[in-house]
């Protein structure tokens, strides 16, 4: 019987060092878990469970997955058909996940640095994708270039929007509106010579803040910061007080108002304004608020385009303060507090009764927005 000698099996061809690649065949989203399972020769389900756990524990899994999706190449297997809708959904999920992770970990040092940077990078990719139509795929260098362009565009438009907001708030609305019209005209002309879609986003970044400022009627003139005004005598009380942005406190409790009407204008662009009055003063008020609220003692109105009116009549011997308020975005409050002093036990006295009891009759109305009172 003839026997052939056992020949050893030929060695497998040298495929080089083991590489970590995203799997094209074992993929639910981007094939990162499939690639990890192949690389470490472990069960794919276990890798997916681990990734979900990492995503829920502070969002680290989302960061790792997003980084791998961008930086790790695909192994070239699986479907090659472009799936733009699916890719967009994936990108949207990643962006939303990053934002949630930023919120959750905002208290920690890692969350304060890593997640905003990652979110900015992903946002840059999304912006560039929307503007240019170039998908965030391909070589890592190409993806990084697109992310950088998107971040640059995003930051540029943010700066434009901020500049438009400030210019509009400081009374330059006509000039900013003229820039918007000029941008529109340039786009119309450019449409006939190839188009200039890159101009659309910057033009909107200028136009929309102006629209917001105009709708809310925000007036930033008057300065920024905290302003505490406490006149001691009637002569020191001005006809009006205004602040661009911040907190404005007008404390009239030290002023002895005479019987009769005293008018006071209070204007704030964005922020909080409060008028403190003494117990024996009747307060009538009107106010306009773009977005925000008005509270006059126990009555309030809130929402968009609030047109507040609280007409009060005072007895002949009682002083009446007639407040005309104007708020762009924020809160106007009129409070009644007793003078700041301590009782026999040393405790600071509580706020006095929050009703407009010094007045004789009331006629409150709010033009729009939710109201109480």
């Amino acid at each position, binding site marked *: 019987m003839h026997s052939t000698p056992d020949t050893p099996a030929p060695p497998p061809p040298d495929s080089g060092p083991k590489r970590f690649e995203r799997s094209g065949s074992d993929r639910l989203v981007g094939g990162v878990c499939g690639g990890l399972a192949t690389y470490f020769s472990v069960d794919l389900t276990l890798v997916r469970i681990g990734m979900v756990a990492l995503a829920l524990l502070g969002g680290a899994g989302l960061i790792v997955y997003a980084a791998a999706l961008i930086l790790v190449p695909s192994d070239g297997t699986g479907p090659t058909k472009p799936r733009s809708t699916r890719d967009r959904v994936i990108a949207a999920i990643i962006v939303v996940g990053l934002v949630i992770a930023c919120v959750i970990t905002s208290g920690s040092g890692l969350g304060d640095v890593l997640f905003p940077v990652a979110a900015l990078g992903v946002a840059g990719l999304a912006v560039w994708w929307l503007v240019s*139509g170039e998908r965030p795929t391909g070589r890592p260098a190409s993806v990084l270039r697109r992310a950088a362009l998107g971040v640059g565009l995003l930051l540029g438009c943010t700066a434009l929007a901020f500049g438009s907001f400030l210019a*509009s708030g400081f009374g330059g*609305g*006509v000039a*900013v*509106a*003229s*820039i*918007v*019209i*000029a*941008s*529109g*005209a*340039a*786009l*119309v*002309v*450019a*449409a*006939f*010579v*190839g*188009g*200039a*879609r890159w*101009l*659309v986003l910057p*033009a*909107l970044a200028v*136009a*929309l803040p*102006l*629209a*917001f400022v*105009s*709708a*809310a*009627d925000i007036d930033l003139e008057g300065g920024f910061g905290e302003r505490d005004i406490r006149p001691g005598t009637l002569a020191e009380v001005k006809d009006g007080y205004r602040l661009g942005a911040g907190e404005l406190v007008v404390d009239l409790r030290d002023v002895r108002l005479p019987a009769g009407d005293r008018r006071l204008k209070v204007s704030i662009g964005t922020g909080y304004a409060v008028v403190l009055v003494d117990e024996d003063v009747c307060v009538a008020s009107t106010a306009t608020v*773009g*977005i925000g609220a008005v509270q006059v003692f126990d009555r309030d109105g809130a929402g*968009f*385009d609030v047109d507040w009116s609280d007409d009060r009549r005072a007895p002949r011997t009682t002083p009446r303060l007639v407040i005309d308020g104007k708020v762009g975005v924020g809160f106007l409050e009129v409070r009644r507090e007793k003078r700041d002093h301590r009782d026999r036990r040393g405790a600071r006295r509580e706020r006095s009764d929050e009703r407009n009891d010094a007045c004789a009759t009331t006629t409150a109305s709010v033009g*729009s927005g939710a109201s109480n009172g």
Partner: protein
Amino acid sequence: MRRTGSPDQTSLTAGIVLIALGTVLLLDNAGVLRMDFSAMAPVAFGVVGAILLASGLSRGTSRR
């Protein structure tokens, strides 16, 4: 920019609606109109919507 046969629909639409929005804002800031949120919000959303619509339609046309 190269000269083409038909105008770029996205740029044309965006330009027209931005001119319209800019005119409204100009009149508002000049004191001719008074636009509060209830009036401005539909205008602003309409502008953005028109641009997105034009962009989407032009992409669909170019794919065909």
